[in-house]
């Protein structure tokens, strides 16, 4: 995935660690081949390296410099300003609120997006008829552009004649202000996110389940294990690695939430659903303060790196 894909695509597939390794001996022959094949390899790497330097390394460096200036969208304020932006960010209540919202969103989405996607993948894996239909049902929303997913749900959340409130009114209940009340708005954003992105984890689980060798089950059934025993002693342990990986990717993807919140509630009501990335957008482009927005970006980047390292540690311990 490119470095700029939307949050649900950002979970690029990762090669599983320690999976069945290359055919033995290929490493040494590859090394030998390298020595045989000389030094023209740089030309192979050059196009990528040029793009990489230009559109990844350079923005990282220029953004870092920008975070020490008061650079404005209008072009002024490019003089060095020291750590002003960073100290301002640490005392910025709106930033802390956005960080809090992001953490809450992450907690509320990771659990269903891991547990529910496993449960659904398992139900499909059991082998009920109509495989392709089940698969399509859960994966289809993932293929929708975010604006389509949000448009559909906005239409369902509508007061008066949206699907939910329309049905409530028909049944004689009061309407529910899905998007205009703080606690409900976050809940609505979470529901939309789970519906929209579950398909990705679902497919990962499904392919992991399909890789479980049958003979394990056969052995278990000879031992007289029932379906629950098989689930807990064979299926779940066998896909442990996938689960760890999905949790990791999902946490990072959820932390980077922006677009569905931006489109559904625009961070409202009154900042109650605004995420860190949306705050960066608001500060930088709506408020012109590119320098300050850059500083917030780098603080957020540091946080993500810390979280990633902690996760890697935990993961390595688990798989050790």
């Amino acid at each position, binding site marked *: 995935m490119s470095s700029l894909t939307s949050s649900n695509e950002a979970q690029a597939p990762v090669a599983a660690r320690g999976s069945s390794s290359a055919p033995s001996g290929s490493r040494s022959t590859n090394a030998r081949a390298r020595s045989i094949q000389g030094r023209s390899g740089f030309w192979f790497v050059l196009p990528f390296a040029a793009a990489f330097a230009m559109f990844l390394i350079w923005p990282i460096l220029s953004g870092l410099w920008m975070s020490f200036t*008061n650079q404005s969208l*209008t*072009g002024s*304020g490019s003089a060095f300003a020291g750590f002003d932006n960073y100290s301002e960010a640490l005392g910025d209540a709106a930033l802390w609120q956005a960080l809090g919202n992001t953490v809450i969103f992450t907690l509320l989405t990771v659990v269903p997006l891991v547990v529910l996607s496993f449960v659904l993948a398992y139900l499909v894996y059991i082998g009920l008829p109509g495989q392709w239909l089940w698969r399509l049902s859960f994966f289809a929303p993932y293929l929708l552009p975010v604006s389509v997913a949000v448009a559909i749900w906005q239409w369902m959340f509508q*007061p008066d004649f949206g699907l939910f409130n329309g049905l409530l009114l028909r049944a004689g209940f009061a309407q529910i202000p899905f998007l205009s009340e703080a606690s409900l708005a976050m809940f609505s954003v979470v529901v939309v996110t789970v519906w929209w992105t579950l398909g990705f984890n679902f497919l990962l689980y499904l392919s992991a389940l399909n890789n479980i060798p049958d003979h394990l089950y056969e052995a278990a059934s000879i031992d007289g294990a029932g379906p629950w025993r098989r689930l807990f002693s064979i299926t779940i342990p066998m896909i442990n690695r996938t689960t760890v990986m999905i949790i990791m990717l999902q946490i990072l993807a959820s932390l980077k939430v922006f677009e569905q919140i931006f489109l559904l509630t625009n961070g409202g009501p009154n900042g109650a659903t605004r995420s860190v990335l949306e705050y960066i957008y608001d500060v930088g*482009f*709506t*408020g012109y303060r590119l320098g300050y927005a850059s500083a917030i970006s780098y603080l957020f980047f540091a946080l993500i790196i810390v979280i990633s390292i902690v996760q890697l540690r935990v993961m390595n311990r688990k798989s050790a």
Partner: protein
Amino acid sequence: MGHDPTFRTPVSRRSILQGMLGAGGLLAAGGSLAGCSTSASASGGVQLWDLFQGADGVKMRSMIASVTASVSGLSVKPVTLAWGSPYYTKLAMSSASGKAPQTAIMHLSRLAGYAPGGLLEPYDLDLLAEQGIREEDFAPAVWKSCQYEGELYAVPLDTHPFILFYNKDLAKTAGLLGADGNLTPIESPDAMIDAATRMAAVTGAQGISFGHVTDTGQSWRLFWGLYGQTGGDYTISVGSPASIDRDKARDVIEFVVRLMDGTAMPATQNYPGAISAFTSGQTGMIFSGEWELPAFAEAIPNLGAVPMPTMFGTPASYADSHAWVLPRQLDHDPETTRRTYELVAGILKQSGTWAGAGHIPAYAPIRETPEYAALTPQTEYASAGDNPVFDPPVWFAGAGTEFQNQVSQVLTGAFTGAMTPDAAIDSLLSRIDAMLLAPNPT
């Protein structure tokens, strides 16, 4: 939407090739290149951005169509974006990159955040005069708001005040009409509460609607307009702490709290709730922006309107103004510039149509036409355009800003009794102080 066909084929094979070559060239050389810009000027058209939807959008599109029909060789590509912060963010970003539309609508209250930063270009008064647009055609207060450092940065299209609409049939039953069949002037807070209470007796529910809960501007519109009537001084400018006449501000807040007794006015209506209460006859009056007039007129056969009743001494109504601005351009083509001025002037001369959506035309010659004089209830509140109360001219204020959102939240809290008037005033001042101290990015 029938557009000029020249705009329907933005993608030529050439531009795709250019894109490919551009990508390749960049990768190979790491240099820059001029990308394939498809600005409208290349095809002799004028790009225009606005934020008008619904009745406003219908009227604006028909005005543009009339102008293009009457000016030979003019082609226009109008684009409508979402009102508020998304619109202004995109406008700033396109101006910053110099590839903005040739002209765009801006609330005058936002000018202080755009003109100083160089995101806009000033008008050439001679070119405007050639198109028949001159200073004397506009109200002095509005014209002054269009200027920055002696240059004209905006040409006002309308003034849209925050006023009082009323249902004439219900008002008649409640005995609120004078001999002329219009609302008897309401000249004090107590008179307003009395009138609303009498109206409530007729509707059987409440007297007057006002939707403000979770809204990002309504409480501010009501408060700031009434504070303008008190003649209270204020200091809201960068470089000094914010100050406001505390007694007068308290008077205004306390009046609204008294009015929201649940009978005269419900305390916790949101924007759409207030509108549907008024159009369905649960209330007989509403404090509202005049932009809701088309919706009201459709639902209420006998609709009346007056400027915000003068309850605090000086006639004044909160107002803003839609104006045409010229976003910064990278390349200036005299031909396109002339076309743009033709378009802006043409739309101004069409603003009789615009008045149909409730707005008071800023261009005086239109206000003096018999067609405008025949519009009701528009003419009943047209005087509101003579004494508008605009937002303080500071870079962070204006329509759809975080400033309006924050002060509205505080005021809503005060109106609904969640905090005392004095606590609300303290909170207002401290929030405004924080914004005044924030680095000015323009």
